[in-house]
């Protein structure tokens, strides 16, 4: 899903860039730079989601424990 989203955003970027900006196509913008610790940005996105889910579960247990 994240992969699809990413691709859709990429498409949009390409289209909008060609419509809007006079920038040369080869200009480096760093979009393909490798993220730290993970091979792909998708790894970071999943990591953030997992941490959020873990936090919600921990908060739920915290609420139940002290109620």
């Amino acid at each position: 899903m994240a992969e699809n989203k990413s691709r859709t955003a990429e498409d949009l970027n390409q289209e909008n860039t060609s419509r809007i900006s006079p920038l040369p196509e080869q200009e480096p913008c760093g979009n393909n730079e490798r993220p730290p610790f993970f091979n792909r940005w998708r790894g970071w996105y999943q990591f953030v989601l997992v941490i959020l889910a873990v936090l919600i579960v921990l908060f739920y247990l915290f609420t139940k424990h002290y109620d």
Partner: protein
Amino acid sequence: MGSLDWWVMCLTFLVIILYGVYKSRGQRDVDSYFLDNKSMPWYLILFSIIGTQASAVTFLSAPGQAYTDGMRFVQYYFGLPIAMIVICIAFVPLFHRLKVYTAYQFLEDRFDLKTRSLTAFLFLLQRGMSTGISIYAPAIIVSSILGWNIYWTNIFMGGFLIIYTVLGGTKAVAHTQKLQLFIIIAGMFLAGYMVVHLLPEGVSFSDALHIAGKSGKLNVITTPTNITEHSFWQDKYTLWSGLIGGFFLALSYFGTDQSQVGRYLTAKSIKESRMGLLLNGLVKVPMQFLILLIGALLFAFYQFQPAPLSFNEMQLQKVTDPVLAGRLEGVQERFNQVSAQKQALTMHLVDALHQKEASKGKGVQNIAASREKLSQLQNQADLLRGEAKEIIKTADPAADTNDTNYIFLNFVIHYLPKGLIGLLFAIIFLAAWGSIAAALNSLASTTVIDIYKRSIRPEAPERHYLNVSRWFTLFWGVFCIAVAQFAGKLGSLIEAVNVLGSLFYGTILGIFMVAFFQKSIRGAAAFWSAVLTELIIILIYNLDVVSFLWLNAIGCLLTMILAYVMQWLLPGGQKKAVKANPD
């Protein structure tokens, strides 16, 4: 405050201002003034994003919010990490590729000038107003403690940060935010430690959590399930409103609010922007949880100590009429009696929790009975506080009796040691300066780039735009101070800021969503759908049908749906839509 506190506070201010002025050097054009020549690393982006969002309101109101309503406010931030991901995927690469100064520049290329101008105007209106509240929030501290006139305090408060913001632009803002955040985090940890440290002997951190929990203050997760009930939509902070409403609010705030977009546009690459945003998604929820936890611990603390009848003690002192003062004294006496009973019962509850059989039959019954009695006493105390508020209102009908924002600072004044009081006060100021400075910078950039340079004076030397940018920063500083003079009537400040944001953010986000994902929609349809949506949102808010967090989602979705409808209704729309979508 003692002389040591004044020294600590003044020294902290001086360091920040001098550091900000020092970092102001080298501003030669609008590029360096608003974007710092796109040179910032991810950690500066992260500090800047956090420093911009976490204003003094966060540190003043959040503990008070937890004290009165419990910790469920943290759910409001659950949508934020998801929004960070969407922004990293869709917004960041586009803004970087287009090399824009503001988020609204993109809308003219995608739609037309009027859509860009409308969105910029909505942003200026909303951000200008909410920044006024951010000035008022720390100003009430000074006015309350020193007995200064609030109007002069607002002016005094806004003045310092304007110095380095006008001079140094984005660079000065980001570097001072970094320093401010270090001091703020250290100070808040110290404050939290002191709350636990000042608990009576034999009462541990865990006991304090149990006391707060038994009084319903550790309600971090609340999950209403019946969507047919009115309360489901009215309840401000639930898991669902936090995840869905919070997501839309965070998406609008970080994706379309120039005060945040302006932070990550300064990154030297897409990677640095993304890292700053994603790490913000990781740290924001735990950070907010810890700030709220201070409020819950404060509640436990005040079960052992006599809490004031009103945390805004100045209001109590203002009741000078002999008859009303006599009534207030009677209320105070009864309140003291209830407080004494609460203290005794809380100690009894702690003893019950310490017993080995606490988790067994009789122990559980004992704890439940104490909890029930404690709840009754708390209700009595709340009623007496309500009575005191009525007396204050009778004495001065214009008085603001909401003391939520005073809870944390009241504790700071009365219980923290000398030196630390000064540091905590400095922290409130620094937090305010961080977010206000970023807001002024973004207000100026939007005014100059989206309005002045685009529609008023398109051809001028770079030096002229730099000077104009500085003048507009100053103008917005003065405007926000003016708004601050009226902010006292808005109740809980943190909520007021969010309500204000929710009125406009949905529509602004909707315009961007249409721009990104509805390729067939043209400018006129986007513009009129936004205008119509904004009117409907204001109507819904006035009718009080749903909690304000839902307005973000409604505004966004309504703009997207109405854009389709408008595209078909407006002359030539169907033709264009078909042409744009040959499939």
